[in-house]
């Protein structure tokens, strides 16, 4: 084996080791997250809400986002109560989105990627495949993500909330922002 061949061999081994190590590294939340939703009602009514405490983890090649639903806020406490009642948060306090990591594209350092994927969304105790779009930017080992999805709440056996004759549309838009780190 020539010197060049040895060098190439070592590089291949080290490269392979790096890939293996990278494959074993797991993603998890790093830093603050945002979690917003928008429901549209009749005659221009727009309800903007937000949650907190969004957490992402990775295990077995599945990246899972968990959003607590018990502290959702819409700016009006009575509306918050109605929302929690509609979501039955006592019985179903969390929504989760599980995605195979292999279905996601993570760009090279300082690069961005826009794409879409399908994950398994569990809401109100019902799990459905749900398409979402995402935008990711990598800085070192951090991935800055924004994900958006639109949910037909009736598909998750959630009754369309109505109050005093004002009902929201069954399609609700969700937007999240969070940072993942390859550990």
């Amino acid at each position: 084996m020539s010197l060049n061949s040895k060098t190439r061999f070592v590089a291949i081994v080290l490269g392979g080791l790096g890939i293996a190590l990278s494959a074993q590294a797991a993603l998890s939340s790093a830093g603050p997250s945002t979690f917003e939703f928008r429901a549209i009602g009749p005659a221009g009514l727009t309800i903007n809400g937000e949650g907190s405490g969004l957490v992402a983890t990775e295990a077995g090649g599945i990246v899972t986002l968990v959003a607590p639903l018990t502290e959702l806020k819409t700016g009006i406490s009575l509306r918050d109560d109605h929302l929690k009642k509609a979501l039955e948060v006592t019985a179903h306090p969390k929504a989760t989105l599980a995605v195979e990591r292999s279905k996601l594209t993570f760009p090279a350092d300082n690069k961005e990627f826009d794409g879409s994927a399908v994950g398994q969304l569990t809401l109100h105790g019902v799990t459905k495949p749900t398409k979402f779009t995402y935008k990711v930017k990598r800085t070192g080992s951090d991935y800055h993500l924004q994900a958006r999805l639109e949910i037909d709440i009736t598909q998750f056996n959630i009754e369309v909330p109505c109050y005093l004759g004002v009902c929201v549309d069954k399609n609700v838009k969700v937007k999240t922002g969070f940072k993942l780190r390859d550990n």
Partner: protein
Amino acid sequence: MKKERKSRGLSLVLPLAAFLFVLGFSQNAHAYAWMLQHGYTACSTCHADPSGGELLTPYGRVTSDLILRMHYGAPAKDDPPPSPGVFWGAWEPPEPLLVSGSYRNLYVIRPNQPGHEVAFVPVMQADLYGQLRLGKFRLGGSLGLSKVTAGSANARAAQVTAGQGNELNLIARNYYAGYEFSSEFLLRAGRLNLPFGVRIPEHTAWVREATRTDRESDQQHGLALAYVGEHMRAEFMGIGGNFQLGPDQFRERGYSAYVEGIANSHLAAGISSKVTFAEVDRLTYEANTLRQAHGLTLRAAPFDNLSLLAEVDALFRTNADAGYVGFAQVNYEAIQGLHVLVTGEILDQGLAQSALVTSTGYGEPNLGGWLSLDWFFFKQLEFRTDLITRTTDKFTLIGQLHFYL
């Protein structure tokens, strides 16, 4: 200082340029505008009128209780939700029926008007509103009482009874039959608020007076189609004239309309246009008068609890130079239910061709400023006071007690 007639081009361009500057500057706003701050980008969730004002829906009544008025003390966890009923929750009408009402009195202090330094008007407004919904059809209207001084321009145009002195008169500001094509489109025929500009409660603001689009008594009979969507709201009204006025030559005919784009929950901007013709102008008695107003509006909230409303309109009328009118109002909600408002306004109605020299407001700008305190101190109760100074009237202090059903 009087000036000779000159081109009005620059006078028009300057306020428009200032407005566009404000519009451009506000594009990065990040908070909610006044009621927009709660996601209410349009008006018809809370009001029967798709463009806002007067008759409340039950949802509107509850919303006003939750987010409009001042609350005292910490809410108890088991507090019942506010009642959507009228008379402070005493009566809940059946679902197809909306009932509401409004009462205002007025205190005025004008030290510069000898003999009229202090005035108290016990009933400035006393209206009842109602609407019945039968499937897609709506029937609605208002009925009220007015008592104004002889010669007053207020209330006369809405009178049902014919008294022209200071006696009590029956008035009807609005009444209509409507058909709801969908939750977005509503067609109404009747006596309606004119769709134009920012729908503010200050009916004496120059933007409302000079364009003749206030909700005090400037309503007209006609046919109006309203659209309210997530990103846009609009209303177009063909004006057939005010049939509570006569004879026919005093009736203004034409159109009035606005379109407002809603960029997001905290920024909306629109355009308004109104063109009317009357054989004889009911206020100036000028013959064959074509009046036009075309303008821009802005609603924005650059910070939490602080909103900005603005409007600028170009004014045109037969036998006069072009003019303009505008206002900008900053509304700061210091505590929920307590608003501090600062308003600036400008008016130049244009020099009439028969006039030789300019005067304030006619060829020369009339400037005004308002400092107001608006306190929604209890459920369906409001106290408001305004300190107004204008070039032509240096000091006016008014106070109003208002309750609405």
